């Protein structure tokens, strides 16, 4: 894949809560040889509103996101759920308006989740070095990335390419309990789901649980104890650590 103007859509959660994921993503893309642009007008893709049934409130956010991202040749997102929103739900949401529908379809065709994008590249410059970390990790399949986008192998391929050994959980594709507003609406059930996910993570030989979705990351970190035996990291950060051979740093 070649693309000259690629835009980073970081997602509102990464923007406000976990900006290091955006930084790590930018570093990976730059190492792969791209000039990364960050459209400053971006806020939220609208998924929280859409998933809560507030479609009239999601619609203007979808429209402005389309307008903001339209000029670029490819859009990369460090999160499967927001990528799924743009790729699959935007065309649904805008299906009654032909102009917007086709704009949504065009955007959908050039929007990629990070690991998907890196796997489509012909070169593996993104890992540049002889990265060969020895750590054993486990990977949590976020639901939308796995089931809506069908991205199951891609993140694992990247992790293995930089030397990680993957110890699979009993149910890697079992929901972490986030589900957006679900985690606030039914917090007891949500937390129980997260506890089960973390239990499965700890039961592997891995020291780190990796996910490619900011929402899952936030949820699982929220239930992680301070003295927990398992770390929780975003894919982009884990890849950067393996490539640089150093613990993550914003410097």
């Amino acid at each position, binding site marked *: 894949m070649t693309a000259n103007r690629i835009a980073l859509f970081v997602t509102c959660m990464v923007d406000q*809560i976990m900006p290091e994921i955006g930084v790590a993503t930018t570093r990976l893309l730059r190492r792969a040889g791209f000039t990364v642009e960050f459209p400053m007008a971006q806020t939220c893709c609208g998924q929280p509103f859409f998933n809560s049934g507030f479609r009239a409130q999601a619609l203007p956010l979808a429209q402005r996101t389309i307008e903001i991202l339209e000029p670029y040749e490819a859009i990369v997102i460090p999160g499967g759920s927001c990528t799924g929103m743009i790729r699959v739900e935007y065309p649904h949401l805008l299906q009654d308006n032909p102009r917007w529908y086709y704009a949504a379809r065009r955007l959908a065709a050039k929007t990629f989740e990070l690991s998907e994008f890196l796997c489509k590249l012909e070169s593996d410059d993104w890992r540049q070095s002889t990265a060969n970390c020895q750590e054993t990790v486990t990977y949590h399949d976020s639901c939308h990335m796995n089931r809506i986008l069908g991205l199951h192998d891609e993140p694992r391929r990247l992790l293995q390419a930089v030397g990680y050994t993957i110890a699979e959980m009993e149910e890697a594709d079992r929901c972490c309990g986030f589900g957006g507003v679900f985690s606030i609406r039914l917090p007891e059930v949500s937390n129980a789901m997260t506890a089960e996910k973390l239990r499965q993570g700890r039961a592997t030989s891995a020291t780190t649980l990796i996910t490619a979705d900011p929402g899952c990351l936030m949820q699982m970190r929220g239930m992680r104890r301070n003295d927990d035996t398992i770390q929780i990291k975003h894919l982009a950060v884990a890849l950067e650590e393996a490539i640089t051979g150093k613990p993550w740093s914003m410097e």
Partner: protein
Amino acid sequence: MTTTTAQFRERATIALEDVRLQQALDGATGRFATARQAALAAIPWADELRDHFKAIRAATLANLAEHLQTFERQATAVGTHVHWAQDGAEACAIVTEIAQRHGVTLATKSKSMATEEIHLNAALAKAGVRPVETDLGEWIIQLAEEPPSHIIAPAIHKTKEQVAELFERESGRPQSAADIPALTAEARRMLREQFLAAGMGISGGNLAVAETGSVVLVTNEGNGRMVTTAPRVHVAIIGIEKIAPTWDDAAVWLSLLARSATGQPMSIYTTVITGPKRTAALDGLPDPDGPEEVHVVLLDNGRSPLVGSKYEEVLQCIRCGACLNVCPVYREAGGHAYGSPYSGPIGAVISPLLFGLDKYPALPHASSLCGACQDVCPARIDLPRMLLELRADLVTQGIAHGSEAVLEGSVSLAMRSERVWALLMGMGRVGQRPLLKNGKLALPERFNPGGERPLPALAKKSFHDLWRDGEV
């Protein structure tokens, strides 16, 4: 029954704190799910079979009225009495009227979700007919006076100790939880008396085959055959969507039903009921066994308005329960949290559709939208899409809380301008300072969702700030 968010949380919390229930749920749903996976993996064309089945179900629903009329014509031709019930009350009235006409005081029942849906047992009792459930799980929950907590394993929430206690009360003899074969033998003994004494047998129907006017029952305990053959009268209550136009269609249906439900290639008993007993030859074959009268009640109860609507696809459901076994919400919250005979993902969709969205406003939200349900559905019903549609209906019908609408509206408005949004988040950054601890908000526990999950703090600088300041 209703299920608001507060009710769902309350009932789910009871289930979450019940260690034994959690073990039972994990064990049973896990076993069903694993068995299903193995059963489908054993047929190389399973994916194509499911595609084919979905096409059959969709095509059937597209001409539902015609297939129902064919069923009525064919069933009537073999001597079955066909009744149409618009709602639960009408169905209950039809059944009690038949019972009273025959002077029935005791009716045996085989497992039927349709009768759970219309609360037939209560109606029968009121009319002086004692209904006795004969499916082991159904009988257990009848003795406990509880609703089912799983579509195919209604007593999934009961432990063997609780079962022994119920049987002890019913039989008046001591029972041991340690000896499960003895418990089932006791159940068999007690139920055998009921089978022989009952004046009427009541069943559901897993499907009805239009071309021959037949009702098909799928069971594992053999009780279905006792219920439909021993008493003089048999009444089957079937949802109008459960129709297979032909036996070719039924064959596909049956090849997926047990595999999806329990992982069996077929259940132990597949019973086909085509009219009452007859001594005169029909198609050259006399059929001297069975009841003197067979009735089929075709139950609408909120189904026909779904035909042709954006929810039509949900009528493709064959009640196998596979979606419950893989649902991470059901597996934690259990079936009773839903407050409906239908729990799990399918229950979260059909309970509001059949019984009223205003009565079950929490159910469309009782899902993380993970999509595991759609993965295992034999008809590949897009349940996550239906849940999203129901959530949108909650908003457009004004059932969602006003305060929620105000919140969603104002956040969406703020997010329409990157400057307003940045300003608000900047204020949040300053405001959270006194509360920060290890990157999380150190709020009193009652402000943490579920009491145990501290909310994440806003980062020192947003990605926008980092980018603008040249730090990326």
